[in-house]
């Protein structure tokens, strides 16, 4: 059986008393792109926090290529090959662009198809190369997003989690980010793409999971979703 790149099984997670994830399960196939959709507060970002170890789940398990991550702290989970492009980008503002990249560097595993380095990131995002000596805090939103993606790639991850990379960006920058994601998928990276904007995801994704109030409401292939013409607004509309 082909092992999944990432799987969540029956995750229950709480913020204090509020039960934010209720039995969430989904899997990401190797080399696939999973679109994770849902309204504000549906549990998308919380799912990311659980996967990277910032919020230990009360029940359930997270596995990467069949290996359980139970009880590992975030820095150890990073070493298993998971990288996060977090919501709000969260670049290290007082570090230079180059420093943001080198602090996350990790050698590529043997036999990896691609190997990321500072130079490779600068090649992929020339604007970062031009500004490598500047503080990340003075970059534009789009540049910070590139930097957050570059920083995640520096660890040569096997699974890339991207939490709303289009948030707050101008349309042409969003298009650039989406092109980057498509390219990374073509290179064989397994990706979870969290979005509020379903239209951005459906064309790119192999599978789509929709969360609603902390539960999985829909878990289908993108093809099935398109052919069935499911009413996304039912799950994603604000009202």
């Amino acid at each position, binding site marked *: 059986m082909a092992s999944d790149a990432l799987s969540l099984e029956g995750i229950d997670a709480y913020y204090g008393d509020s039960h934010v994830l209720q039995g969430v399960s989904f899997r990401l196939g190797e080399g696939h792109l999973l679109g994770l959709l849902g309204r504000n507060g549906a549990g998308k970002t919380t799912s990311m926090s659980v996967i990277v170890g910032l919020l230990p789940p009360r029940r359930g398990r997270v596995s990467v290529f069949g290996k359980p991550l139970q009880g590992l702290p*975030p820095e150890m989970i990073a*070493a298993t090959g998971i990288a*996060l492009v977090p919501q709000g980008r969260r670049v*290290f503002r*007082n570090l230079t662009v180059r420093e943001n990249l080198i*602090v*996350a560097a990790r050698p590529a595993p043997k036999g990896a198809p691609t190997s990321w380095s500072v130079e490779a990131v600068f090649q992929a995002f020339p604007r970062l190369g031009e500004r490598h000596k500047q503080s990340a*805090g003075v970059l534009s939103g789009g540049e910070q997003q590139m930097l957050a993606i570059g920083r995640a790639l520096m*660890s040569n991850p096997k699974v890339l989690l991207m939490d709303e990379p289009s948030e707050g960006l101008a349309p042409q920058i969003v298009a650039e980010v989406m092109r980057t994601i498509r390219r990374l998928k073509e290179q064989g990276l397994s990706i979870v793409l969290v979005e509020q904007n379903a239209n951005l995801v459906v064309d790119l994704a192999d599978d789509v999971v929709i969360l609603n109030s902390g539960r999985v409401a829909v878990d289908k292939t993108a093809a099935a979703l398109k052919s069935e013409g499911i009413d996304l607004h039912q799950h994603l509309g604000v009202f």
Partner: protein
Amino acid sequence: MNLWVILAINSVALGGLLFLLSAGFSLIFGLMRIPNLAHGSFFMLGAYLGVTFLRIGTNFWLAAILSGLGIALLGGIIERLFLRRLQGQELAQVLVTLGLSFMFADISLMIWGGDPIPLSAPSALQGAMQVGSIVFPSYRLAIVLVAAVIAAVLWIMIDRTRLGAMIRAGVDDAQMARVVGIRVSRLSSLIFCLGAGLAGFGGVMGGPIFSAYPGLDGDMLPLALIVVILGGTGSLVGTLVGSFVVAFLYNYGQALFPELAYVILFLPMLVVLLIRPQGLFGRLPT
């Protein structure tokens, strides 16, 4: 005229010592948010350890380095045993470090007794150097050089290496730093050891000037606090400038207005706290 020059030379030497004392305090507070009130104790214990090493015939510089290492080890134990468990609870950390400082004072009194013990400077540096008409005591000059070298090394380490960038990343956003794989807690221990060790080393360096005596801890801690508040926490440049400002205020204040020495020392601190609470060179947390 001569008095002014002597005061200036003494102030520069005291500034160097204050930098050794305060750099660690500033790193620990700026990077880890731990208000370490045992920092004066680290300085005093360093001086006493130096006394013991010198008594068994150790060379002065080796004694300073060994004492620094010893205090670094002590700092590491304190960080792991107590402060690690009180992360983010600044009041608890204040109380624990204050309590520890009282305990260290008692223990030192028991081991080294109540009389001041002078440490003698290395014999090669006991004389004076004459430049033009000005006479520098060699040892005080050496203190300034050592402080300058340590300032440069710290600056390179924090500002120019990958390790330093990782430390700063942890300060910027500790959660995110962990997510990208940085072992923030290990770096915190390293910083605490380094800060404690610098204070211990400084205690030996200051020994030939201050001696080792009960109460040295309490004399040094307020100076470190003023330096760091003036200069701004977590800023090496701020600590360097703050050290010399405080040293000059201290020496000139005591010579010119002895009855107001503490007013002259603490007044600038109050003013800075009121109009620029992050310190002259500090950054506001983002």
